């Protein structure tokens, strides 16, 4: 955190000053470790084992916050009889087939739960056969927890519960059994964390949780960039919920997100599977209309029940008066998904000639994305490419000086891509909002005019739209009826933003106001509760409704922090409803009183009969804690007065996810796609539902006990430096940053240096099945070998900021990394892989290919290497009768 969110880290230091105990868990000793009270080095890719150990400690020691757990989580819910755990099936949950899970058996007894976005496992039930088809048997259905910022998966019916938490099939008991084997000894064997240190952490955490104290977890891509990444976060959630650390001040799980507006670009998603506000994109289905879509996706209870209002208001915002009840508010104009259309899939489709044109707008995949060579191959297969950036990044110049061109493998005369590089305006040259990692929108004002052809992306998309619309309009009489029909979605789009200045810059404020939404009279709405499903309101993103309340741009508020309460509600605007802490109802007990006076945040004021406190209550302010909804209540009204998780369809936080996760209802330790070790817990080596793309340019390496895995004996992880930013487009061109970290390097322990003859300051070559890169050697005791049971494991660290362009240059770490994804969110595994390392610079040209071929041969790599879903029964003793073997697809 000190490295990648340094200014956020000031609050950690502040806490430390006031006596907080800071624990840092990381494979590498970093600047964060240096300031932490306890540093826990662990094996990259083993956090579920570590967190599982903590969960087990909490459960077996009885350290959980009983009242909180019983009242606010789904611990009492009773799960159906058909559910089988990984502990029963040696690494698989019930329902695994063909590389995916069928989650039916995970449900609660007496109820049905289905995911709101994308996951269509119940469509047949709802709509009859012929549901969406996945283009490849390798992938799970599209969508997933990207929407988790808002509503959880949908839940229907009333499950059985056992408030005593004793029923053998209640979530709490399942949890206990599931984590029972995560002992300190196991943690030591899986993570390389010695049991003494583990106990220290467990005890410190427990001591600092409960009624009077709260602990917070902060994470970022050290947890997400894994083939089981989403389950890492689930594991942390379980732990925090058991300890009663969610929804309370000083608690929570803080996702330290990445770019300036990564949160915004998820809320108003430039993502394939979502519409603004986490409304899922519709899937292709023969009988899909607005009603059936909403029926499938909205919840009966909680705020997601109003999804129809959100969606209709969005459609009205987009197609204005053309969207009317009679035409389903133009719902059929939305393009339909048929599976995973994520970036990796798209790039492989580019290579296969299926994608012709590509806009790259403020991203540098030729350096920043795993298997960057594959990314460049995709770029080289396009008809046309538009790159908008501040500098001539590698993604724009791949045809001229990409590694393949330099190595003579290809050349400009063999690359047919037409490239448009359009210079972008910087943040000081345009108005607009970023949404930070706390869901807070902050307006940045234009300070100066952009120079030359530099334009904001707002300008570009607005004028591109204007131009396309004009061209289409002019050609209507030449176009066939079907073309004309499809053109209407474009021609009837509301696209009339006021522009200003010489360059006709569209007004960002007008766009933000459209996002906020207006009522029938055209006045800005002030809350999403005002949205209607009858077409009388328009709103571009329901969760942002209120940012323009009272016609005031609330994102632009900059009332000095010193002049406000510590919650600082008048700086910027946070969604939803300017709420700074989500699920803050949980900061009070079921009766509405703060769990502890000095941890009071929002509470029920019985005199005024209102919720009150430091923040906007995460609850209808007038609903008393003892509220019991009527039998027919729907939506928010159906929530009981003591159900704080208002976006969830049952008002409770989920320890166990009966649906919504495609790789299991509970986190389980799996090895990374590439690991030198065999899974110490299960026969199933890796996440069986992980997403793989075995292709010639994306070979995988053998793992664990597979022959050949010893060819890549070292674990590597990639990391960021405070001095650079991501793929380097915003740092490698700047002298004041480049000089601080002027060259690509690799961090190794003195032991690795000795084993491989690496010399401090000299060159080393890191090799995987995909590539070999060179880097300068930094021998440091901060990298320390780990002892796991009998073996000593060595890890190496690679910063990944470099590429061939800019002031400070170097090989990109992402050349090394294969594409293997978390199946829930399609995120690549960059944080744990295996490699070899050699002294000296890497060979060039043909010799480089020879080196790689040699490695692949020695490791016996084929198309199928690493693609096993479920390991051979022969390798494990016992439990031979389970379904595992037959699910092994290849």
């Amino acid at each position, binding site marked *: 955190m000190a490295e990648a969110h340094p*200014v*956020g880290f000031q609050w950690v230091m502040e806490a430390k000053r006031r006596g907080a105990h800071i624990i840092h868990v990381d494979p590498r000793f970093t600047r964060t470790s240096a300031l932490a009270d306890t540093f826990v080095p662990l094996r990259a890719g083993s956090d579920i084992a570590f967190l599982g150990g903590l969960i087990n400690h909490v459960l077996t020691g009885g350290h959980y916050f009983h009242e909180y757990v019983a009242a606010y989580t789904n611990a009492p819910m009773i799960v159906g009889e058909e559910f089988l755990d990984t502990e029963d099936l040696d690494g698989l949950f019930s329902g695994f087939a063909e590389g995916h899970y069928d989650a039916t058996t995970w449900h609660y007894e007496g109820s049905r739960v289905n995911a709101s976005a994308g996951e269509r496992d119940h469509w047949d039930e709802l709509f009859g056969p012929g549901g969406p088809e996945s283009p490849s048997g390798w992938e799970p259905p599209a969508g997933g927890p990207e929407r988790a910022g808002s509503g959880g998966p949908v839940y229907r019916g009333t499950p059985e519960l056992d408030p005593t938490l004793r029923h053998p099939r209640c979530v709490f008991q399942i949890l206990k059994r599931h984590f029972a084997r995560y002992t300190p000894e196991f943690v030591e064997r899986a993570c390389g964390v010695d049991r003494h240190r583990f106990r220290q952490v467990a005890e410190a955490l427990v001591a600092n949780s409960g009624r009077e104290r709260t602990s917070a977890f902060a994470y970022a891509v050290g947890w997400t960039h894994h083939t089981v990444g989403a389950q890492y976060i689930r594991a942390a959630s379980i732990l925090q919920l058991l300890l009663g650390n969610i929804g309370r001040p000083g608690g929570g799980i803080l996702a330290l997100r990445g770019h300036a*507006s990564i949160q915004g670009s998820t809320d108003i998603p*430039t993502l394939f599977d979502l519409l603004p506000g986490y409304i899922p994109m519709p899937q292709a289905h023969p009988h899909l209309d607005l009603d059936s879509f909403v029926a499938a996706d909205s919840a009966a209870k909680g705020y997601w029940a109003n999804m129809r209002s959100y969606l209709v208001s969005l459609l009205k915002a987009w197609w204005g008066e053309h969207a009317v009840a009679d035409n389903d508010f133009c719902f059929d104009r939305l393009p339909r998904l048929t599976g995973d259309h994520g970036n990796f899939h798209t790039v492989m489709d580019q290579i296969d000639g299926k994608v012709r044109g590509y806009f790259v*707008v403020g991203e540098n995949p030729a350096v920043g994305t795993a298997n960057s060579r594959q990314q460049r191959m995709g770029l080289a297969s396009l008809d046309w490419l538009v790159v908008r950036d501040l500098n001539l990044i590698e993604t724009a110049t791949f045809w001229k000086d990409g590694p393949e061109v330099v190595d003579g493998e290809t050349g400009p005369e063999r690359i047919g891509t037409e490239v448009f590089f359009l210079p972008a305006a910087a943040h000081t040259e345009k*108005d607009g909002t970023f949404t930070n990692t706390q869901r*807070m929108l902050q307006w940045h004002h234009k300070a100066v005019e952009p120079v030359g052809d530099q334009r904001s992306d707002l300008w570009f998309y607005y004028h591109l739209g204007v131009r396309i619309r004009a061209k289409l309009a002019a050609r209507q009489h030449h176009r066939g009826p079907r073309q004309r029909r499809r053109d209407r979605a474009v021609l009837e789009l509301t696209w009339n933003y006021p522009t200003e200045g010489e360059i006709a810059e569209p007004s960002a404020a007008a766009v933000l106001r459209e996002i906020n939404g207006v009522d029938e009279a055209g006045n800005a709405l002030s809350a999403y509760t005002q949205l209607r499903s009858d077409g009388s309101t328009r709103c571009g993103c329901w969760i942002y409704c209120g940012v323009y309340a009272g016609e005031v741009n609330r994102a632009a508020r900059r009332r000095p922090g010193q002049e406000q309460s510590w919650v600082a509600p008048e700086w910027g605007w946070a969604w939803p409803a300017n709420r700074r802490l989500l699920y803050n109802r949980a900061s009070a007990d079921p009766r509405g009183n703060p769990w502890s006076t000095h941890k009071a945040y929002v509470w029920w004021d019985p005199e005024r009969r209102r919720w009150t406190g430091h923040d906007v209550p995460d609850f209808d302010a007038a609903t008393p804690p003892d509220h019991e909804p009527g039998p027919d209540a729907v939506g928010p009204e159906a929530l009981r007065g003591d159900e704080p998780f208002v976006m969830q369809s049952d008002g409770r936080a989920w320890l166990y996810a009966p649906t919504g996760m495609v790789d299991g209802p509970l986190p389980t330790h799996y090895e990374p796609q590439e690991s030198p070790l065999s899974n110490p817990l299960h026969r199933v080596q890796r996440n069986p539902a992980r997403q793989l793309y075995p292709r010639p340019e994306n070979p995988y390496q053998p793992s664990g006990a597979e022959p050949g895995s010893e060819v890549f004996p070292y674990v590597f992880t990639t990391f960021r430096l405070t001095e650079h930013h991501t793929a380097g487009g915003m740092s490698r061109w700047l002298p004041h940053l480049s000089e601080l970290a002027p060259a690509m390097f690799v961090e190794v322990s003195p032991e690795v240096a000795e084993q491989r003859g690496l010399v401090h300051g000299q060159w080393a070559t890191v090799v995987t099945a995909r590539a070999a890169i060179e880097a300068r050697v930094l021998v440091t005791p901060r990298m320390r070998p780990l002892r796991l049971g009998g073996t000593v494991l060595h890890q190496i660290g690679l910063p990944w900021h470099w590429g061939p362009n800019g002031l400070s240059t170097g090989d990109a770490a992402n050349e090394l990394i294969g594409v293997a994804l978390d199946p829930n969110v399609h995120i690549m595994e960059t944080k744990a892989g295996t490699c070899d390392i050699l002294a000296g610079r890497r060979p060039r040209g043909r010799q480089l290919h020879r080196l790689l071929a040699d490695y692949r041969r020695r490791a016996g790599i084929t198309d199928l290497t690493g693609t096993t879903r479920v390991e051979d029964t022969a390798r494990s003793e016992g439990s031979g009768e389970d379904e595992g073997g037959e699910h092994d697809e290849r």
Partner: protein
Amino acid sequence: MREWLRWPVLRQITGEDPLGRGRAARSRRTDTERARTAESDAVVGSVCPYCAVGCAQRVYVRDGAVTQIEGDPDSPVSRGRLCPKGAASRSLVTSPSRESRVRYRRPYGTEWEDLDLDTALDMIAERVIRTRDETWESTDENGAALNRTMGVASLGGATLDNEENYLMKKLYTALGAIQIENQARI
């Protein structure tokens, strides 16, 4: 004569700084120098463009150019502090390495070429329309509506403003392009 009176040696003799270590040694420029931010035409509220912490910035402008970017002490998030990247924001936006002209590379071309912005926009619009027409998918094999093109894809968004992402998503969706992705995926 006035200049002569400013001769520090004279001031050493006549003033209270006989050793010439302080007041007497000051130059005229030192006496009149001001922080360059004090001479700004405008100070504009902004937000750091790098990471999601969202540190607030003050952008100082003089003669239509950014002269300094600093943390905004009013921010309850950052309290005026910046990390090295945020602190380098002035360099980022004023960097001479920034491209200011459209660059165009024709298929199989070996060099960049000039192209004016208007033509570029026009060419891109044409390519979008053509690709969309050529790759349009109305229905799948089961007759389910698809309403889309798989020929145009887009990447990026996390560095952009919400308003920009909104227009992107809106326009792409209307055009039927679905392979719209950003850094949230990586």
